[in-house]
């Protein structure tokens, strides 16, 4: 049984090596395989990721975090992974928490475990906290599902969940779309409290406020298409 860690990355040469070095090589006897999806980086992200022991899939051009995540899912399925974890490459997520997510998924027999930053938001910038609450509300309006952290990129999926997801998003709206799929496909899920790491670097790499507006527009269009 293999655990694949999908890490969409764009110009993360400064952080990816360190993040990869802290990913466990195995969890409860299961081999862990990091898969970095290089989304059109112009720096040495792919080379450093390979040196760090990751399998690397490279997009010729930047498609967006949603498209990179979907590529990662396909790659994980090709590898035959039974468990798939998505996480950020900028160091915002603590690699040591991967074990907790995987154990929760396996022991609780869940299809999806969402690492929630909002259950214990200590250290989270107040603007980010407020923006995430707004996006939770918008996700609920569009997909009729409320979760504590709809925008979390730190999630664990069972193979069944990965095979059942029908995703179309190319950008950050994929987080909301996954919540919608959990609801649509009646997947068993749990939110698990995680600690997010907010360094100057990871804060600079997160979603810009203006991109949040873009995301709202994308979700609004999806809402209109459903009506």
């Amino acid at each position: 049984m293999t655990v694949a860690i999908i890490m969409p990355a764009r110009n993360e040469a400064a952080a990816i090596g360190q993040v990869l070095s802290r990913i466990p090589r195995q969890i409860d006897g299961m081999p862990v395989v990091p898969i970095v999806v290089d989304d059109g980086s112009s720096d040495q992200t792919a080379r450093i990721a390979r040196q760090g022991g990751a399998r690397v899939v490279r997009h010729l051009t930047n498609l967006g975090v949603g498209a990179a995540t979907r590529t990662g899912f396909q790659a994980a399925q090709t590898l035959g992974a039974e468990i798939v974890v998505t996480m950020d490459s900028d160091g915002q997520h603590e690699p040591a928490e991967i074990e907790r997510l995987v154990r929760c998924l396996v022991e609780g027999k869940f299809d999806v475990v969402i690492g929630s930053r909002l259950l214990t938001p200590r250290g989270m910038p107040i603007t980010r906290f407020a923006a995430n609450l707004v996006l939770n509300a918008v996700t609920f309006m569009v997909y009729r599902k409320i979760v504590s952290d709809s925008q979390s990129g730190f999630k664990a999926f069972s193979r069944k969940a990965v095979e059942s997801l029908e995703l179309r998003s190319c950008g950050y709206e994929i987080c909301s779309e996954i919540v919608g799929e959990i609801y649509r496909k009646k997947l068993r899920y749990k939110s698990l409290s995680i600690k997010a790491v907010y360094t100057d670097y990871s804060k600079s790499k997160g979603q810009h406020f203006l991109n949040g507006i873009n995301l709202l527009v994308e979700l609004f269009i999806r809402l209109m298409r459903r009506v």
Partner: protein
Amino acid sequence: MLLALVAVSKSYVDFRARLESLSMFLFWIVTWAIIVAVALFPWIVDLLIRSSARGGAGLGTFFGMALVFLYFVVYRIYVKIERIEQNLTKAIQELALREDWLNRR
């Protein structure tokens, strides 16, 4: 007028480079000619509205129809862009996964 000139010249360059068909090029010339005519002689709009008002339609009808048409154009553009985005994404993903990444480290 300057904007129209720029737009028509761009269209002409595309036409010469065979990136645009003759019919499309002529369409843009006619469209921009109308826009320039209306800009230079706004009384044309008054004439149009007065003549359509004789049939019972007013200014509201004119703008309503224009709005509906513009919304339709925006909708069509959105659908096309979405389709292109999905196709492009699929092509790049397949290219990325086709490389021998499984065995490469």
